[in-house]
């Protein structure tokens, strides 16, 4: 027994000797003097409340005893004491402060044997300080010139250790502390609170839109990530440390599966249902094995990382087809997540040589994920609103169009009714003229011819019939086609012209429709031309007659000029105080047409009768719309 003690003492001797010398540190300049961070310290695992005089081992600082390395059981108390010596003279004259982080979990700080700080009020406090930074002002009275000793005693039911230890001017250390506190505690807390709120929002939205299952996955992922991240900003464990620890570790796996499930749902991946179910189911044996055999957390983190990499693959595939901002942000987050997980794992001490106090990434990823998705969802909602507005606008426009169409069709229906009435009245008149006057005239003419009645009788009857035919022609709907109207007259009179031995030349140019050429006006036109042609037949002794029409603008008003010209004997206009036979009559008709009638004739020079009609008749001159 003594021998054994001696051997232990001999083994510890160099360490003990070294333990007397100041510890090593790095120095950085700050306002008010240098700031030092210890790179080694003297450590001892001791269960007692006393400061042990022996057993100190110099080791690199920070110095954490982890559960899987020490094979402790969660729930047992483990105590470590860390001692750091420095020369007061190496630091500036300003009041000093100590910064420590990851000193877990309950700890007391002594300066030269005097207690200056403890982070717990009662021993029963379930303190959670594995990650938390602390600022400990060092009272001037506790310090002395020359060598000073800081001792940190940490107690934990879980991994225990003394983390970073930094000493320097109060102002500089406090500033450092504040920035660390913000990035390590405040920001993760805010991000995770926001994430939880967004998860709640997702549930609310899902209640309104049950088909968007990804909202539920998102909410579940948010809840699980919150559970997993709670350790980062919790000050005390909310319940039993072992259970809290287990939940924290296991939540990582399920949160990753839920996130992947959400992402697969969001991307509408085929066969996602069975895959998600299988991944959740796989979690149960993993958790069971991990819990039963107290295995390393790696058994959970490796499949978690693989699932994360699967999600990242989905992200890569999605990036290839959809580059809209929401999709890109989501894809980037899922791509980075597994790497962030590995980084955080190493940071937390998964591998030696890593700092234990730095900025963790995964603690923010859930929140970024939620924000990214809600961006996509919000965009979708905004698009839907815009679509709705556009649809409303389109609908309104359609309604307006339909209303206009309805009004137009109603107007045209009314027009049709009027036109129908006109047509039916016209038909009745036609029938009347055909079967009544027409037939009687025909019979009379036939009888007269058979009985070889005097020519004058036959001519009178013929003329009456010809007049009637022209009246009938004027009733024909020609849609303002003056050419067809005059052409038809010429067609009617072709036999008479042939009998009179007058060759007829038809000289027709391009003419547009005359919109106001209704039955009444058509009759005026026909009568004018009937008269003019009749004059040629009866009085001119002409051998040739020309009938024609063409577009002509008079006084800037576009219109049509139609004419009848013959090469007959003509008359002296100067001597004729009245126009030729019937010309006065047709002049009056021309006037009522708002047209211009011209008659030019000279002895042996033939006669030219021209009727000019405007395309548009000014309303002021009295537009007659015959029904």
């Amino acid at each position, binding site marked *: 027994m003594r021998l054994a003690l001696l051997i232990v003492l001999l083994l510890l001797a160099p360490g003990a000797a070294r333990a007397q010398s100041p510890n090593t540190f790095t120095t950085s300049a700050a306002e008010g003097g240098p700031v030092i961070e210890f790179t080694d310290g003297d450590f001892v695992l001791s269960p007692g409340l006393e400061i042990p005089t022996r057993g100190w081992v110099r080791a690199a600082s920070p110095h954490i005893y982890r559960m899987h390395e020490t094979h402790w059981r969660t729930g047992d108390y483990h105590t470590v004491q860390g001692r750091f010596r420095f020369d007061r003279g190496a630091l500036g004259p300003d009041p000093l402060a100590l910064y420590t982080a990851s000193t877990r979990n309950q700890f007391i700080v002594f300066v030269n044997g005097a207690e200056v700080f403890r982070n717990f009020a009662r021993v029963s406090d379930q303190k959670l300080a594995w990650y938390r930074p602390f600022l400990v002002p060092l009272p001037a009275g506790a310090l002395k010139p020359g060598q000073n000793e800081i001792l940190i005693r940490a107690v934990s039911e879980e991994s225990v250790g003394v983390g970073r230890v930094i000493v320097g001017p109060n102002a500089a250390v406090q500033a450092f502390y504040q920035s660390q506190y913000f990035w390590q505690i405040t920001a993760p807390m805010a991000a995770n609170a926001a994430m939880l709120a967004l998860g709640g929002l997702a549930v609310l939205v899902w209640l309104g839109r049950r088909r968007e299952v990804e909202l539920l996955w998102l909410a579940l992922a948010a809840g699980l990530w919150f559970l997993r991240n709670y350790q980062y900003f919790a000050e005390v464990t909310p319940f039993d440390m072992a259970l809290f620890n287990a939940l924290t570790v296991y939540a990582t796996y399920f949160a990753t599966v839920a996130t992947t499930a959400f992402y697969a749902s969001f991307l509408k991946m085929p066969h996602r249902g069975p895959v998600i179910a299988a991944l959740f189911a796989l979690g149960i044996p993993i958790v069971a094995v991990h819990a039963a055999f107290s295995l390393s957390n790696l058994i959970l983190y490796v499949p978690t990382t693989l699932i994360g990499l699967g999600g990242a693959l989905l992200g890569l595939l999605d990036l290839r087809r959809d580059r809209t901002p929401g999709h890109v942000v989501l894809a980037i987050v899922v791509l980075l997540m597994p790497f962030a997980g590995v980084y955080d794992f190493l940071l937390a001490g998964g591998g030696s040589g890593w700092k234990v106090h730095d900025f963790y990434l995964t603690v923010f990823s859930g929140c970024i994920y939620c924000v990214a998705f809600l961006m996509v969802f919000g965009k979708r909602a905004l698009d839907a609103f815009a679509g709705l507005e556009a649809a409303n606008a389109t609908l309104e426009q359609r309604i307006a169009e339909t209303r206009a169409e309805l009004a137009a069709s109603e107007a045209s229906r009314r027009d049709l009714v009027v036109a129908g009435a006109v047509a039916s009245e016209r038909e009745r008149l036609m029938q009347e003229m055909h079967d009544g006057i027409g037939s009687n005239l*025909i019979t009379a003419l036939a009888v007269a011819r058979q009985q070889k009645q005097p020519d004058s009788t036959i001519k009178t009857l013929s003329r009456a019939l010809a007049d009637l035919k022209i009246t009938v022609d004027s009733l024909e709907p020609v849609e303002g086609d003056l050419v067809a109207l005059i*052409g038809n007259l010429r067609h009617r009179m072709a036999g008479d012209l042939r009998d009179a031995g007058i060759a007829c030349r038809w000289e027709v140019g391009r003419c547009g429709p005359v919109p106001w050429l209704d039955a009444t006006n058509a009759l005026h036109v026909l009568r004018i031309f009937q008269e003019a042609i009749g004059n040629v037949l009866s009085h001119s002794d002409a051998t040739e007659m020309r009938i024609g029409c063409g577009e002509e603008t008079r006084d800037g008003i576009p219109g049509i000029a139609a004419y009848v010209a013959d090469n007959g004997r003509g008359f002296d206009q100067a001597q004729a105080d009245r126009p030729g036979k019937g010309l006065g009559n047709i002049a009056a008709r021309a006037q009522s047409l708002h047209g211009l009638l011209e008659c030019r004739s000279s002895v042996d020079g033939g006669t030219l009768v021209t009727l000019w009609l405007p395309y548009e008749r000014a309303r002021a001159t009295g537009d007659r719309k015959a029904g």
Partner: protein
Amino acid sequence: MIRVAVVEDDPVMRDHLSSAIGGCEDMLLTATAANVAEAEGMIEAGGYDVLLCDLGLPDGSGVSLIRTEALTGRDTDILVVTVFANQNKVLDAIRAGARGYLLKDERIEDCMAAIREIRRGGSPISPIIARQLLGEIRPDPRAPARPMASPLSEREYEVLNLLSRGFSNAECAEILTVSGNTIGTHIKNIYRKLEVNSRAEALFEASSQGWLSR
């Protein structure tokens, strides 16, 4: 010898036509009818080349008689006998199968000439009727076009266009450098196509309204 049958209710007109036909060496009056009932029997019996048909008969419309005659498929030329040759009546008759018209007040020799002309293959037309036909062939471009069962040839369209602009057959012939007979033939063909189309349209209407069984 052109065998002619006459359907006309006015006895004066009927006699007038009959005696004129009888007076022509190249024509033979085979039958006359004064109303639809008589005319139906006459059509059933057949035996004529040209049918002159009045439209306003005391017991019905001449249009249905024209259709009956047309549907027999005989090589009969049907001429409508009309007072005014107004477009509605003439076009109805042409759609039913007529190939031309005679004006009742036309001098009788012109009537006989028209009978010979129709037998030679030529039909008469007025500018207003030509215009109306043109409008039917080239309808409102906005309206959905119903494909014509027998579309007009380019030349027929050209002829119709000229006629609708008031040119006489002779003038059309001169412009198109063809004979006057050719123009008449074109018109007759246009009438034939109008009849075919009107029948196709009637079928179309009927089938689209489900009147015809599959």
